[in-house]
């Protein structure tokens, strides 16, 4: 029996239960701030004092990475960038990078996507154009240049297949069959397909089986990929779920301010992570999702 096959998605109690499934040392494929981040699980990972995680940004990372790095949960990060968008630099990532307390593997977006797509197809690498001549190439341990075997004098770059231990994200719905709906956020499907295990929090439970609905099915990730789900209403906060709640821009600015110093970051954790009497509902979305 394959270790990958998932015939029965497990339904867990909450984000904390999901976070307990993610082992110390695991590599985790994570989406950017605009793409359904499972922030409740990220906060739960901080609370359970997860250690030595490797974060893989698909293709870049934001608040979730900054929180985990600041809280000391991360050993290594592979990503095209870490940014808080309009709120500016990710302060804990920046501090960790500048004090060299974090191993950083710098990538570029399409090489991450291609590495995951190689795993989707069960092949060892994917060839790509561009990138050659960038200093990224020499530093990245898993990229190699070859000559196009079908043409003369045409160097190509290979992205080695990326296999995260865990895919982690948030969904608009999970249904009773264990399928999850992420709409147009297809990078989440790529992460789910490529990862050994996939953990998803959801806004609401959908009665029935979404794959039976021709309009919903194209936005779904089939339960065959989903190891376990757990309910997390407003679970992406302070990030958003389109048409449900927007990105809380004011909160992101506040985070960026507080996390500039280690002491401020500790205070942020105290207020918004350790004391889970969560103020999510008192921080209304300041913009549309």
């Amino acid at each position: 029996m394959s270790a990958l096959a998932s015939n029965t998605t497990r339904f867990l109690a909450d984000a904390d239960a999901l976070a307990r499934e993610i082992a110390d040392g695991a590599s985790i494929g994570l989406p950017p701030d605009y793409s359904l981040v499972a922030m409740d699980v990220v906060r739960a990972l901080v609370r359970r004092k997860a250690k030595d995680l490797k974060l893989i940004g698909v293709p870049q990372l934001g608040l979730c990475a900054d929180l985990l790095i600041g809280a000391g949960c991360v050993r290594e990060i592979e990503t095209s960038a870490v940014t808080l968008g309009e709120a500016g630099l990710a302060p804990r990532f920046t501090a960790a990078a500048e004090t060299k307390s974090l191993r950083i593997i710098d990538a570029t977006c399409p090489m991450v996507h291609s590495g995951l797509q190689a795993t989707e197809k069960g092949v060892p690498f994917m060839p790509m154009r561009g990138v050659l001549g960038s200093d990224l190439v020499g530093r990245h341990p898993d990229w190699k240049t070859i000559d196009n075997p079908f043409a003369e004098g045409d160097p190509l770059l290979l992205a080695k297949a990326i296999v995260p231990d865990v895919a982690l994200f948030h969904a608009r719905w999970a249904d009773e069959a264990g399928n999850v709906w992420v709409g147009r956020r297809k990078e989440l499907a790529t992460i789910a397909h490529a990862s050994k295990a996939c953990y998803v929090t959801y806004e609401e439970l959908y009665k029935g089986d979404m794959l039976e609905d021709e309009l919903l099915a194209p936005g779904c990730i089939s339960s065959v990929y989903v190891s376990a789900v757990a309910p997390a209403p407003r679970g992406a906060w302070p990030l958003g779920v389109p048409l449900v709640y927007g990105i809380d821009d004011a909160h992101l600015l506040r985070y960026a301010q507080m996390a500039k110093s280690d002491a401020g970051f500790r205070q942020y954790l105290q207020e918004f992570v350790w004391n889970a009497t969560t103020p999510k509902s008192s921080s209304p979305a300041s913009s549309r999702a």
Partner: protein
Amino acid sequence: MERYHPEELLACVIARLIGDARHVAIGAASPIPATGAFLLKHKVPALRISLLARRVGNPFTEGSRELFDLAGQGRIDVFFLGGAQIDGAANINLVEAEGRRFPGSFGSAYMYFSAGKTILFREEHSPRVLVKKVEFVSAPGWSPPEVQRRGGPAALLTSKALFRWQKEERRFLLESVHPGSSAADVRANTGFAYDAPAQVPATPVPSAAEIGLLRGPVAQVIAENYPAFARKVWGAASSPQAT
């Protein structure tokens, strides 16, 4: 003369640089390029603008990899890149400089090759940004002939000046200087060598019609996607909640 914000002048330059492109893609954290593109769309309604940062009605349905697939096929005519450092060979550095860490290279190392042309844009015009040689090449301005490359640099726009890229010479040419700066000021604040004509023209200022569009319909669409930028330039009246 019509009073204008510096960002509005830059947006007008961007609109001219986009020119007759059919499809322009704009990455996150690029509100001025986005403003320029939406300004141009009022003159050229057929222009397709793919705004990666769009929170609702985002142009992509295949996830964030679709941008790169589009570019790889040659379906993106114009893209924008910046840099913590940009050098005289049009190399850009988005990773690290002078001991400081920046967010990272994003898709630059791919888009610089695959978009039809790239407009380099950085507001800060100083010797610490415009350097002789970048400390880290996120994306190179030039590739040897055996490396297939569809596009590359077309221009470099800053808060002081517009440079045109000369592909054969592999050097920038100072094309115009914005009001408030001068050829000498640009020379003093640029760390790399470049060509310049004896008389450097002034960058045209926005027309009354352009300002009307920028502060009206363009400000509205920008505020939906870059709220902090819109508030900074056009004030609270541009915020989506106020409409």
